[in-house]
């Protein structure tokens, strides 16, 4: 079992992959930061759940995935959507409720979906998508497709009924699905210790489903990437599901509305020292990747965010006509003749 205390230098990961891991994390960070700013300007509307501080998990798994793999995440899904290659403009456009948005403003921040990229939805009802990910895995098993279904959720999800039903079924049917718990130590506004009787919300429940107990440093993209590969290989080989708990911390509140004043003094600062981007920048330098290369990625990311912002600001809101489209497969909404 990997634990946070055993971060070791590693050289089993190619430079290309490392650069990819870094790039994705930086892009997520810059994007989420921009989303935060735009929310304060009332340009990003409704509600928004940010992954600041949790970038390594999204990036690590996304890089390990193959293009045909199917990912399912929660309403805290910007990171997972971007990590799988969905263009920033489409994601930001959806947050800003513009016509160029990923779903033309019909889904919103909590439901980001891009079937083309394998992003099979972001889900706002806690636990539902674990059951849905099982379905995708069942299809792969039945048709003999090689893809894996990957499902991301928070520590709070481990208490809801659907979590247990999904884990149970996945284990019994040996489905090719990987369940990833992003344990950021808080369930909405409550420390998880107040609501969970065990230390590791996911890993300590695994044995109930005859699964291995796995905890990973969620702030180290390499550790996440390695663990992901193991789980995916297992699934593709028909050996069933895996449950992985990634320990991390969120820099901002639960949602944009939450300034997170409930956190103990100093906790945020301690975790900011383990900021995944900071960790990974050091890692790159450790493996001889020059500052120029790193700076180039940094700048390119900022440019991408700027460009996306400008294009979204220039885009019109969605037209009235689409209010009633796509309720049904025929494109319409008729419940009567």
């Amino acid at each position: 079992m990997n634990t946070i205390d055993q971060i070791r230098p590693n050289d089993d990961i190619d430079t290309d992959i490392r650069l990819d891991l870094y790039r994705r994390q930086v892009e997520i960070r810059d994007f989420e930061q921009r989303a935060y700013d735009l929310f304060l300007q009332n340009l990003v509307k409704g509600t928004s759940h940010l992954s600041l501080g949790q970038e390594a998990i999204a990036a690590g798994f996304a890089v390990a995935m193959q293009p045909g793999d199917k990912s399912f995440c929660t309403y805290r899904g910007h990171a997972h959507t971007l990590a799988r290659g969905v263009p920033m403009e489409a994601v930001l456009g959806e947050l800003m409720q513009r016509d160029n948005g990923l779903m033309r403003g019909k889904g919103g921040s909590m439901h980001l979906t891009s079937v083309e990229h394998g992003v099979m939805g972001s889900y706002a009802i806690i636990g539902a998508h674990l059951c849905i990910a099982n379905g995708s895995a069942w299809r792969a098993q039945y048709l003999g497709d090689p893809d894996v279904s990957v499902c991301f959720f928070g520590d709070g999800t481990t208490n809801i009924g659907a979590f247990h039903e999904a884990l149970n079924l996945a284990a019994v049917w040996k489905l090719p699905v990987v369940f990833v718990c992003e344990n950021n130590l808080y369930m909405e506004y409550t420390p998880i210790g107040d609501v969970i009787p065990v230390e590791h919300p996911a890993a300590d429940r695994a044995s109930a489903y005859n699964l291995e107990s796995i905890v990973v440093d969620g702030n180290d993209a390499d550790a996440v990437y390695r663990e992901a590969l193991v789980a995916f290989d297992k699934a593709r080989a028909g050996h069933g599901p895996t449950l992985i708990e990634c320990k991390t911390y969120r820099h901002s509140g639960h949602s944009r509305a939450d300034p997170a004043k409930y956190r103990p003094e100093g906790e945020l600062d301690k975790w900011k020292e383990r900021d995944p981007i900071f960790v990974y920048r050091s890692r790159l330098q450790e493996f001889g990747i020059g500052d120029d290369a790193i700076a180039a990625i940094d700048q390119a990311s900022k440019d991408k965010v700027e460009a996306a912002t400008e294009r979204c600001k220039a885009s019109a809101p969605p037209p009235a006509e689409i209010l009633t489209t796509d309720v049904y497969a025929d494109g319409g909404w008729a419940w009567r003749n």
Partner: protein
Amino acid sequence: MAELSYRDAVARGIAQEMERDQRVVFLGEDVAKAGGVFKATVGLYDKFGPERVRDTPISEQAILGAAMGAAMTGLRPIAEIMFSDFLAVCFDFIANEFPKTRYMTNGQVSCPLVVRTGNGAGARFGAQHSQSVENWAMMIPGLKVVAPSTPRDAVGLMAAAVRDEDPVIMFEHKSLYPTKGEVPDGEIVDTLGSAKVLRTGSDATILALAYMVPRAVAAAETLKAEHGIDCEVIDVRSLVPLDTQTILGSASRTGRLFTVEENPRLCGWGAEIASIAADEIFYDLDGPIVRITTPHIPLPAADNLEDLALPTAERIVDTVRRAMG
């Protein structure tokens, strides 16, 4: 042509579709090896094997979630929820997940699944296993809802539901399982969103669904023979899409509209139709629209009490007669 029981017709409908399309799979509790607690899926496991016909743990949310994930990624699953009352246990999928995914994703995601469930009273199972809850599904945008009343319709509507690209909830009636009817040989595919006129008449229109259909027909015979009131009886069959053309066409001709609903009074399916009629064909109505329903109570277990609660042919006759003056 053969005489088939309603329960055998359900199995036949599923088998017909599973034979036709390899993507059709079926899951539920005790549906495979046991052939279903109502014996409505006997023979499917033997015919199609354990890969396509799967028994599940008692996990309604996992069942419907699995159906949805499979449907989203290329299969055409049929999921059984044993008693329709249990839809409340997995209602998140019925209300929040299946029906909204296409819309929220701007058309990217399809959800071509069928949920079939045992609905209705008459078997003395008590309040939590006897409800008629088709109105729970009717009220959610994005679903389609059907309720067959005959074996032939069970086959045809199952086929139509499986072939439809949208999520369809099919309410089979527990008390109709043993009833028999003529079913033609060969492939049968019905049309969602179509009601059936079972009896033409000129004085009043009576709408009914599922278990109430034979009672409405019997009442209409009595009304004609003993009271000279000639009623048109329509089997509504499909709540969404709703065949308003047939229903309103009939009511505007006869001038009087009655519904016979097994669901409890408030917000039953007939309330919506009454509202549409009062709006669109107000000036064709020669008297009040009258709904004949189960009272707004949980259902009792005792034989005589349960029989009292549901609309009977006698109560239908009496109500129509008094209303027609």
